[in-house]
């Protein structure tokens, strides 16, 4: 590492005047790119801890109140959950293709792929919002008006405790809500990099913002990949 920094043609800690995209404290663009990428990976490590705490709470309560969790899970729309998973996977594809377009310096393709990603992101939030509205109408939002007696009467032989289904919906809204918040933040980040791409700020030598924003987007996709089976597919067996 010190060798690379010391023997390069450009001395360390001097502005690279011929290359405005290369900050003075980096020896070359590769080092700069790796540092930025590593920073995003550290951040994603903290994000794993952030979601991990909620996942842990979910697992503990799911074990304790399994019948209520299974009934709550069954009240969610399997179609909407599956479609939303597919929508996010499509957005991850467009992100991967966008990073590729930026590596190849294809500006127009890059802008289109970033717009496609944002389109899929908005679709996801739209479907999610539709589901939330459905749960609001059924009084499944854990507030003062919460009412899960429909679940109790739908499963008469399970003798469900409505208060325990409230725990399921609390975790459901916390997890999907925080995930949706990450999607909204992602859309904000993508708006900025789409604008930058449209202005022609990226090149095959410099496209770090695309790459690390892409890492973030893929991470949010992975969180949903786990949320889908954990929330929607607790117990979908026929007759169970």
């Amino acid at each position, binding site marked *: 590492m010190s*060798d*690379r920094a010391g*023997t*390069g043609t450009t001395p360390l800690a001097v502005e690279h005047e011929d290359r405005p995209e290369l900050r003075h404290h980096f020896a*070359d*663009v*590769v080092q700069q*790119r*790796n540092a930025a*990428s*590593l920073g995003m*990976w*550290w951040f*994603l*490590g903290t994000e*794993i*801890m952030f979601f*991990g*705490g909620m*996942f*842990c709470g979910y*697992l*503990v309560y799911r*074990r*304790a109140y399994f019948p209520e969790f299974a009934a709550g899970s069954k009240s969610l729309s*399997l179609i909407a*959950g*599956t479609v939303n*998973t*597919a929508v996010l*996977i*499509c957005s*991850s*594809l467009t*992100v*991967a*293709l966008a*990073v*590729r377009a930026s*590596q*190849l310096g294809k500006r127009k393709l890059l802008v289109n792929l970033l717009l496609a990603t944002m389109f899929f992101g908005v679709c996801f939030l739209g479907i999610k919002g539709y589901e939330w509205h459905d749960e609001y109408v059924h009084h499944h939002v854990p507030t003062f008006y919460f009412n899960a007696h429909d679940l109790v009467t739908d499963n008469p032989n399970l003798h469900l405790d409505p208060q325990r289904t409230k725990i399921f919906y609390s975790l459901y809204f916390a997890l999907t809500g925080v995930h949706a918040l990450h999607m909204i933040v992602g859309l904000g980040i993508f708006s900025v990099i789409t604008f930058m791409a449209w202005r022609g700020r990226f090149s095959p030598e410099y496209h770090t913002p695309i790459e690390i924003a*892409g*890492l973030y987007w*893929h*991470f949010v*996709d*992975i969180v949903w*990949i*786990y949320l*889908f*089976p*954990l929330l929607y*597919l*607790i*117990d*979908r*067996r*026929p*007759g*169970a």
Partner: protein
Amino acid sequence: MAEHMEHVEHSEHIGSSSFYWLIWAILIVGTVLTALIARVDLGAFNTVVALLIASCKALIVVLFFMHVKYTSEKMTKAVLIAAVFWLLIMLFLSLSDYSTRYAG
């Protein structure tokens, strides 16, 4: 050393678009498969299979979409493995506690 540096400068992996489409197809098939298998009665294995498919999908995204398979930066892999490892410690110890401390 100079030759090595030259190599590093151009070593950024650029995947082919058909490869990314293939990864996309595998992920979509995995999603449909999860939803279908959930409706088949496998007993306690329903959850195991669902989480196994989810983990395969996550691994594919990390390796190919997030370029971890191609990165020359070993620290990226170290950070990723450390983060997942700590998550598993938290989940495993918490669940082993809760599943042995109370009878019900």
